[in-house]
């Protein structure tokens, strides 16, 4: 009996709930930490980013308009599907990050727990960050947090799954939609996450995942007129100043992460808060 030939995969992008090839037709080999071949990933271009932003914008009214409870249920369902793919994630994280299987297990578990943690926040954000304001006049004044819009996320380069989940979940928990540029050299867990999102109840376009060269695509997202916020977590050091500058050109919110953020620690609300706008309404009383 001959040995079975393994099936080498060539993955695609995840845009608007579909898995298109890169418009550029390019792909690049993904290797494990020791340089062994793992799979081919699509090498996204600026036009893929443009399409992804259009998809995210299209998905925004539906997702931000869904009730917080409904968003929570959808995110819990994602956690369930993540759990079902646990073994696959462990293999991919171990290969991508070069960590022992035991360590990979704990990273994957932490990632699933992180997703559940943010899922629990969806219907609590308004209660915690909103307020009814005491004002000196016959008005009822109250403030509510509202999602910023389309967020471009540069995912962490090192932490391929836990870091990725820690940057995506807070964006969509509060009703934003996002375009994610994955870790350049460790994209496989992100690709599997896109398969998880596609087979759970998250509407297409809420999360769009692009693999490729961060330095190539990020400037186009930073200057894009229809992107409302930019997360610089995975941005190359040399590009940060330029990205911030072009983000300022269209008045984006920019999240500069704390240097060397440790994703294994349970986070605070700062990432949730970063993509919310406060709307304050003054309503006359006694009318």
């Amino acid at each position, binding site marked *: 009996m001959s040995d079975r030939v393994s099936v080498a995969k060539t993955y695609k992008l995840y845009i608007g709930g579909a898995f298109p090839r890169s418009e550029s037709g390019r792909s690049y080999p993904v290797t494990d930490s020791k340089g062994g071949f793992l799979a081919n990933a699509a090498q996204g271009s600026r036009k893929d980013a443009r399409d992804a*932003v259009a998809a995210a914008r299209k998905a925004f009214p539906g997702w931000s308009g869904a009730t917080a409870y409904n968003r929570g249920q959808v995110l819990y369902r994602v956690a369930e599907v993540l759990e079902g793919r646990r073994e696959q994630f462990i293999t991919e994280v171990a290969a991508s990050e070069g960590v022992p299987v035991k360590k990979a297990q704990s990273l994957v578990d932490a990632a699933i727990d992180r997703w559940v943690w943010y899922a629990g926040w969806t219907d609590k954000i308004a209660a915690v960050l909103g307020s009814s304001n005491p004002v000196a006049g016959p008005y009822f004044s109250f403030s509510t947090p509202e999602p910023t819009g389309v967020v471009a996320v540069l995912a962490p380069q090192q932490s391929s799954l836990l870091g990725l989940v820690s940057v995506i979940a807070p964006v969509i928990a509060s009703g934003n939609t996002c375009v994610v540029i994955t870790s350049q050299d460790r994209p496989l867990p992100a690709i599997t996450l896109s398969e998880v999102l596609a087979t759970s109840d998250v509407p297409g376009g809420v999360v769009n995942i692009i693999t490729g060269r961060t330095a190539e695509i990020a400037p186009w997202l930073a200057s*894009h*007129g*229809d992107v409302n916020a930019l997360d610089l977590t995975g941005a190359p050091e040399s590009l940060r100043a330029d990205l911030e500058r072009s983000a300022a050109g*269209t008045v984006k919110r920019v999240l500069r992460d704390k240097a060397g953020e440790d994703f294994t620690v349970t986070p605070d609300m700062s990432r949730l808060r970063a993509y919310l706008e406060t709307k304050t309404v003054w309503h006359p009383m006694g009318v």
Partner: protein
Amino acid sequence: MAAPTTLPSALADAVRDESSLRRFLHGLPGVDQVGVEQRAAGLGTRSIKKASKLHAIDLAISMVDLTTLEGADTHGKVRSLAAKAKRPDPERPDVPRVAAVCVYPDMVKTAADELKGTGINVASVATAFPSGRSTMDIKLADTRFAVEQGASEVDMVIDRGAFLSGRYGQVFEEIVKIKEACGDAHLKVILETGELVTYDNVRRASWLALLAGGDFIKTSTGKVQPAATLPVTHVMLQAVRDWKNQTGELRGVKPAGGIRSTKDAIKYLVAVHEVAGPEWLDPHLFRFGASTLLNDLLMQRRTQLDGHYSGPDYVTVD
């Protein structure tokens, strides 16, 4: 039957009576469906970049018939549309004006008052748009009303029921009479190709409209799916080209409905250039009937000039 203009003898024969009209229309060569679709798709892949793209965008903007044909139209909406027609991108005065504003007859006066002296035409749909199901008297009254109110272009619909049951003479007479009622106003004849079923019918209807004196042939009302498609526009462009070859007259084409992106618009312009000829790349001979297309053209124009992608927040809402 009365021929509207002096035609070459072959065409004058065709409009002598109903049976010769039928003979002429059925004698037109059939359309090669696979061929025309392949040709349309092939031309659609042509890459237009940089300076030529910018030129194409400006040309497309100047060809837009900015349209609002909703039951919910108000005078206020028509006024804001007219303002947009005059200055499509208020921050950039170098953006060309659109060709015309297209509205229902009762809104024509509002649009005409707003657009007086700007050179932008007011187009009005008429003849029981979009179905065309009414008596001749009502269709004529509809047309006269639109022209009285100040419309310089009239978009009429043909009676598709009559056309499909082979009563070509009736359709012909209708177009001739509406053309008379238009006076100086230009007449665009809407074929509603989505209801004509075959390309052969599109070719026959195009020739019928040209013979009867339509200044423009227009694909659709925008109320029926499918609306304008590239292959259908190809067939119509071939008709106006052949019309020019036989009579020396230039007639226009207007695809309408379903053209939403700059990419689509440029594909149409390529088709115009390749099928009809460069002289048709002119707002007097080619128009886009559209409402959402203009905003995409403006966003693409900004993208070309600014070097980064623009978004809907930077253009006016309709």
